[in-house]
Structures are given as structure tokens and as C-alpha cells.
């Protein structure tokens, strides 16, 4: 049963790579945006908030198609990036990472935002009176205190990214070795006449990865909370 073929391995490794890169790249943006939404009032804040949540409520196919229109070779942003920076998203694994990043972004931002909102702002004031400039207050007080939320957001984002299917297959298709993740590999396998066993193998593997991520997050969150509130 657990005789994994090279194609399947490729899909597993690609899924992990796509989800990890998507999460790592999205996290700094997520933290910045979460801070902005939690701490600042500005014109268009609700619109920005809605925009961040949009991928959560839109059909994934729609998000994928919008990505194709914007970041495709002839898309507004995609053409510019390809011409000026040589970055191509369309039908590449990087495109899969982008799709996963966008789809998981709302899940990443939310816990971070909640944990920043929960921080006692009077601690940040105290840091100011001790001579900490606003950016120092952020790095030495706000961010460390929000760490459990950041970890929770990253795990949720990763879980979403590794399971992403609709937007990815719409944007970058289902090319073995380049954009075929576990999800799209399973999709292909169930459509082939004798792909059932292989599909089941991948199903088991996705369950293992998902469980692993959940256990790791639980452990990390417990450690972070312990660190925050004294041994």
C-alpha cells in the first residue's frame, strides 16, 4: 500500500514547498496588515478588511481566474513583472504558491489581528515612556506578545495552503512536476480507471500532514504561552 511512486513523491514535495513558501512569504504581510487593521483608523479601512476576507467567501475558481487575469503572462501585473523583474507566475509552481498564499491570507490575518487587539496598549505606552520608539515598541512588546496568534495564523494558513485546490488548478493548471500538488494529483488519479489505490495513498498522506501540522501548532502555541506568562 505505502509504495509511493516517483510522481506521487513529486506531488507531495511540491505541495509542501508551495505551502511553506506561501506561508512564509504571506506572514510578514499578514502581520503588517493585522497591525494596521487592529491599531489604525484610516479611510477605506472596512473596504480593505472586506478585500482581505474576499478569498474566503468567493468561489475558489473565481479567485483563480482573477489571479490569471492579473498575474497571467498578459495580465496587468503579470506582464510587468515578467518584463521588468523576470518573475513569471503563470503555470509555474510560484503561481501555485501565490494562489495558496492569497487563498490562505484571511485565515492567516485573523488570529494575528485578534491577538494584537488583545494586547494591553498600556504596556506599549509604558515602553514609550522608557524610551522605545514606535518601531521598537512593535518589535519588543507588540510582536512578542502577539506570537501565539502569529503561530496560530501561520498554522491555519499552512493548512489552508496545503489543501488548496480550486484557485490553484484554475490559475496554474495541473502540470505534473510543476504545479501538480497533492490535491490536484488526487483529482487526476480518481479520474483515471485504476488510480484508486494511488489516490488513497495520497489521501492517507494528506491526513498525516494535516495531523502533524495540528499537533505541531498545539505544541508551539503551548510553548509560546508558557514563555509569555512565566515558566
Amino acid at each position: 500500500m505505502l509504495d509511493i511512486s516517483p510522481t506521487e513523491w513529486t506531488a507531495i514535495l511540491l505541495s509542501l514547498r508551495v505551502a511553506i513558501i506561501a506561508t512564509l512569504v504571506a506572514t510578514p504581510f499578514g502581520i503588517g496588515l493585522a497591525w494596521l487593521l487592529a491599531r489604525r483608523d484610516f479611510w477605506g479601512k472596512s473596504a480593505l478588511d472586506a478585500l482581505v476576507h474576499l478569498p474566503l467567501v468567493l468561489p475558489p475558481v473565481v479567485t483563480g481566474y482573477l489571479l490569471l487575469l492579473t498575474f497571467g503572462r498578459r495580465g496587468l501585473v503579470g506582464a510587468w513583472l515578467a518584463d521588468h523583474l523576470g518573475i513569471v507566475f503563470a503555470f509555474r509552481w510560484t503561481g501555485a504558491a501565490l494562489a495558496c498564499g492569497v487563498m490562505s491570507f484571511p485565515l492567516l490575518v485573523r488570529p494575528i489581528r485578534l491577538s494584537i487587539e488583545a494586547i494591553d496598549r498600556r504596556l506599549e505606552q509604558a515602553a514609550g515612556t522608557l524610551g522605545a520608539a514606535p518601531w521598537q515598541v512593535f518589535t519588543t512588546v507588540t510582536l512578542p506578545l502577539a506570537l501565539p496568534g502569529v503561530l496560530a495564523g501561520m498554522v491555519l494558513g499552512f493548512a489552508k495552503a496545503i489543501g488548496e485546490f480550486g484557485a490553484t488548478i484554475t490559475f496554474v493548471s495541473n502540470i505534473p512536476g510543476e504545479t501538480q500538488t497533492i490535491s490536484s494529483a488526487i483529482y487526476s488519479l480518481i479520474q483515471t480507471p485504476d488510480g484508486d489505490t494511488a489516490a488513497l495513498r495520497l489521501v492517507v498522506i494528506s491526513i498525516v500532514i494535516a495531523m502533524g501540522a495540528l499537533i505541531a501548532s498545539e505544541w508551539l502555541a503551548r510553548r509560546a504561552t508558557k514563555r509569555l506568562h512565566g515558566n
Partner: protein
Amino acid sequence: MLRVDVAKQLGEFSLQAAFTSEGRVTGLFGASGAGKTSLIGMIAGLLRPDRGVISIDGEVLDDTSMRVHVPPHRRRIGYVFQDARLFPHLSVAQNLDYGRRMNRLAEDPAQRTRVTDLLDIGSLLDRRPGQLSGGERQRVALGRALLSKPRLLLLDEPLGSLDEGRKVEILPYLVRLRDEASIPMVYVSHDAAELRQVATQIVMLRNGRVTAFGGVKVFRARSRPPDRSNPERSSIAARLRDVADGTLLIAPIAFATAAK
């Protein structure tokens, strides 16, 4: 020298206060809601006055007519909050070190030893704020503010969150601090007895206005028995005794005479 002349509207409440202080410890006295915390919040730069000037040793920190407002982190004014506000994710030692690190000051082990000895917190250095008693927490907060090397220290009811027993525990440290550290302080309290022990100068605040200003004799006059040989003084003493302890229904004129 600290010079304050500010006005600020906070909802229904209007604060309008002016005083200068040269004493080592200026006691800011008033009932809760008199505007004490708002006033020192403005000195610290956490609140912005609507109108007015705040300067320290001639350096302007706030001047609304010139649109000057120095942000809190550039004022070098220490603030000890009523609720300590220690950083829960840092050990006591890291809390004490915080101001020095943020201001990029060189390490000063001698100063640190002096402060930890003065406040008796040397044995707590490895602990987290969550493992400290209220009194210990307040002492660490004091040490943390002192070690950021401020030119002025604001203490907002530093004993306010402690019960009677703890207050007696902390008060001697504050007196030692006044006598041994050369940092001028503004000490906020609604407790006359406390200020009598610590302050060298009193500013009285009532409903957002300064009602009296002078030496601590203001308080001493109240506790002294009436002086029979001086009818004027005894009548003042009698008047002072008549007002309940801690209330502010005292005419400024009485203080002017009593403070002589």
C-alpha cells in the same frame, strides 16, 4: 525646573492647570477625578494638551502655539504607573534593562547594583512579573523607570493598588529614593499622609484646577495642635481640622498663610 501651563478638554471635564516646581518631590494632590493622571499624562507626552506649554529645565516639550510636541520616547521622563505595567514576557532583569537598551545607553553595572540594592529586588532578577507580589512588582517598576536614566520621574499613585500592609512596605523605599537618587519627581496621590512623608512641595488639584500650591507645611499645619498664643494661626488650624482628611474644600488663602 518643571513648568506646566496647560489646558485640555476631556469630554465634559476641563483641565486647566499651571504650576512650576523646583522641589525634589512635587506632590500632586487631589481626589480621584481631579485630573491628576491626565496632568502627568501630558507631562509624559502620552496626552497632548489643547493649549499651553510644558518645559523642563528650559527645554520645551510642548508648546501648542509653536506646534511643538516631543513624543514620549524622546522626553526622558520616567513614569511609574499605578498598575506597574511590567512586560509579562520578560524577566525582571530584562524589564530592568529595557530602558537602557531602548536608549542605547552603555551598560552601567554599578548603577544597576545601586538601584537593585536600594529597592531590594536583587533576589527577583530571574523571575517573571507573573510570579511577583504586588509590592515587588511596584518596586521593579520603580527600578525599571530609574534605570532608563530619566531627568524627571512621574509616579502615579504608586501605592494605589496596594493594601495598607504593602504600602508600609514600599513607602520607606520611596523616601530613600527621594534622599539618595538625584532625580526630581512628581508624585501623584489622593492620600495626604503619604504625600506628607514623601513630598517637598504640594500642588493641589480640584476639578481640573490648581487650588493651592506651596510647601508640605500645608499638611503639617493640619496635624499640629492649635497654637493658643497666635489667634490667627489657631483659627486656621481649626479651619483645617474641620475639613475632612483628604478633601480639598480648603480656601487657597488659608494655605498661603499657613505656609509662611
